[in-house]
């Protein structure tokens, strides 16, 4: 019968939404259970001989491999580096595993690797180990890359949803939805018709370190808004912190071409992926200054305050819409798909 897990894996299990969470909770966590995994953060912080070591891993399966403003290689570096950074860690090393489909052009692989090397240099990390596997034609999507990142958390840095308090402010480092829109435009063959759609793929470590240095103790928690976009991150943070969030849609910047494309495809930019934006929860008294600080950085020029932490039902994110109505934000279930009618 329908309405239940069919007993095998579907693409939706890997989409980062509800089914991915179910897999983690019902299958992986019970098998691997330990206190670090239980925190289910973007990275694990483990003690190692007096150092707080931060570790994270991610696999990249984006199609197409090249998109406006980036490629799978750059994504594989920044995605992992950013997962470390938003945990307050200083990223140091990466490993890279390549699963290549037979037939991929060497030139494409070279471009991807070159792009990874540049991204690693910009993010200040070294790629110190790797692995290469080739699968038969038809058994891969050109190229998959897995990256594992290692970094360290400086003494005194304590971040996490448990530190979020009512009255704290919600901050986003820039316009949202650029990456998702750029990739969707390319997939739908619309990227030549919509000018200015460019992925926001960028490293976040600089912004994060600047915030942490300027406002020690006042930064409660940070996340990068990747799959599921800003809305999903907000719901996750509200749930993990047991608080309610109030958000103002009018305060959230969405670039003009992104808005336009989302209109055409019937997609909500708040759920479209970002690859260079972070959401930070900061104490109210430093919120304005934090935004000012971020705006002095090229990747943070359009940083904005979008809402407030409130007392209320845990996990509830209520948004005042641009029309003046209210709407509850939920986790993304499944993929966002273009409209048919």
């Amino acid at each position, binding site marked *: *019968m*329908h*309405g*239940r*897990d*069919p007993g*095998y*894996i*579907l*693409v*939706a299990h890997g989409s980062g*939404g*509800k*089914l991915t969470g*179910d897999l983690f909770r019902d299958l992986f966590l019970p098998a691997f259970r330990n206190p670090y995994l239980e925190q289910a953060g973007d990275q694990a912080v483990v003690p190692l001989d007096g150092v707080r070591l931060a570790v994270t891993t991610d696999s990249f399966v984006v199609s197409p491999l090249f998109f406006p403003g980036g490629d799978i290689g750059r994504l594989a570096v920044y995605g992992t580096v950013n997962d470390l950074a938003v945990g307050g860690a200083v990223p140091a090393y990466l490993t890279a595993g390549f699963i290549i489909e037979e037939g991929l052009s060497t030139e494409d692989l070279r471009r991807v690797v070159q792009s990874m090397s540049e991204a690693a240099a910009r993010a200040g990390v070294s790629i110190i180990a790797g692995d290469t596997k080739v699968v038969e034609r038809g058994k891969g999507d050109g190229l998959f890359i897995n990256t594992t990142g290692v970094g360290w958390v400086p003494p005194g840095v304590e971040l996490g949803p448990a530190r979020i308090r009512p009255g704290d402010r919600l901050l986003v480092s820039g316009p949202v939805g650029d990456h998702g829109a750029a990739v969707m435009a390319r*997939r*739908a*063959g619309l990227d030549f*018709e*919509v000018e200015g759609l460019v992925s926001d793929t960028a490293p976040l470590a600089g912004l994060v370190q600047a915030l942490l240095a300027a406002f020690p103790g006042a930064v409660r928690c940070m996340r990068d808004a990747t799959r599921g976009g800003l809305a999903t991150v907000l719901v996750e943070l509200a749930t993990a912190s047991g608080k309610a969030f*109030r*958000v*103002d849609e*009018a*305060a959230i910047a969405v670039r*003009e*071409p992104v*808005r*336009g*494309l989302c*209109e*055409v495809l*019937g997609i*909500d930019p708040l759920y479209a992926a970002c690859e260079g934006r972070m959401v930070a929860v900061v104490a109210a008294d430093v919120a304005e200054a934090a935004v000012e600080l971020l705006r002095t950085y090229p990747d943070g020029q359009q940083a904005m305050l*979008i*809402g*407030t932490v*409130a007392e209320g039902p845990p996990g*509830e994110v*209520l*948004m*005042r*819409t*641009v*029309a*003046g*109505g*209210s*709407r*509850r934000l*939920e986790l993304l*279930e*499944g*993929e*966002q*798909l*273009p*409209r*048919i*009618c």
Partner: protein
Amino acid sequence: MKFADEFRESSLARDLSRTLAREAEAIGRPVRIMEVCGGHTHAIFKFGLYDLLPPSVRMIHGPGCPVCVTPRAVVEMAVRLAEQPGIILCTFGDMMRVPGRTRSLAQARALGADVRMVYSALDALEIARRHPDRTVVWFAIGFETTVPGTASAVRRARAEHLHNFLLLCNQVTIAPALRAILEAPDVRVDAFIGPGHVSVIIGTEPYRFVAEQYRRPVVISGFEPLDILHSVFQILRQIRSGRPEVAVQYRRAVRPEGNRLALEVMEEVFEPRDQEWRGLGVIPASGLALRPPYADMDALRVFAGLLPPALPDPRGCRCGEVLRGVATPPDCPLFGTACTPSYPMGACMVSAEGACAAYYRYGRSTAAQPAAEVGEIARS
């Protein structure tokens, strides 16, 4: 591509909301407005427009989601086709998750069938070009919005002598569905918000009978919040004046005569046929069949034996009533429990335009708090 911020201005929306309240009061009785198109259902939830509508105005969700109205037997046929050796079945993403008899196309793919998600009929045609040794079936669903695309794919396939491109056709037209709703004994609708994208193609003429024969207003609306509020205003005005007509609120996109080129190619390739709709039964002349010169591309002919007899909806499911606007999604006992977007039982829970999905995603206890208060907290 210019995005119109002026269609979202919240101060204008509040003004309009007050005007609406006055109009509704002057009418003095409840008004039931059906938004035919799932895109409008979605927008109403997405922008929290219920907060801005007078309590006496009730929005009813119509059958305007092509994924939702595709009969279960046809979905099952698609699954069976996909499981034939040598076939590549191409479809829109949302269609992949609708359950057939035992599984959905997404599940069939997980079990080995070659099912591909595409964005248009032309993408499916391209797959047929690249795989001359396989049979590519385009699962054609949709209202008049997507039909011209399918029609031109059919024409091109013929021109290029591609013999491996077939259509599993379940395309529908909007006007006969409106008539069926107006004729249904259990449905009570005072007016319609007409579909924006469909009307770009067909214009206003096909709706005329609604105003003339059935004395109900039709206002074709855009998808921005102010578009919808403005359309409700026009409807209330018409009701108050007692002069129903077909009006276009979505003037920046819809011309009264529609898109002639698109209509021509549709006309050349397809002809009307009686068609079963989930929830509404068989509606005369509401579907589209390939015309005789193209009939050899009809997968239903080539694989006639695979079409199962009619399949009723699963037990407990109230999709049919939801699609007629007789029940709201929370009235369904499966809503949010056995039926969720991750594991949908019915089609209305699948596509973003389906009423159940919209309720599930936005509806549950939205407006638990007055909008004004939310805004103040966010800004404080």
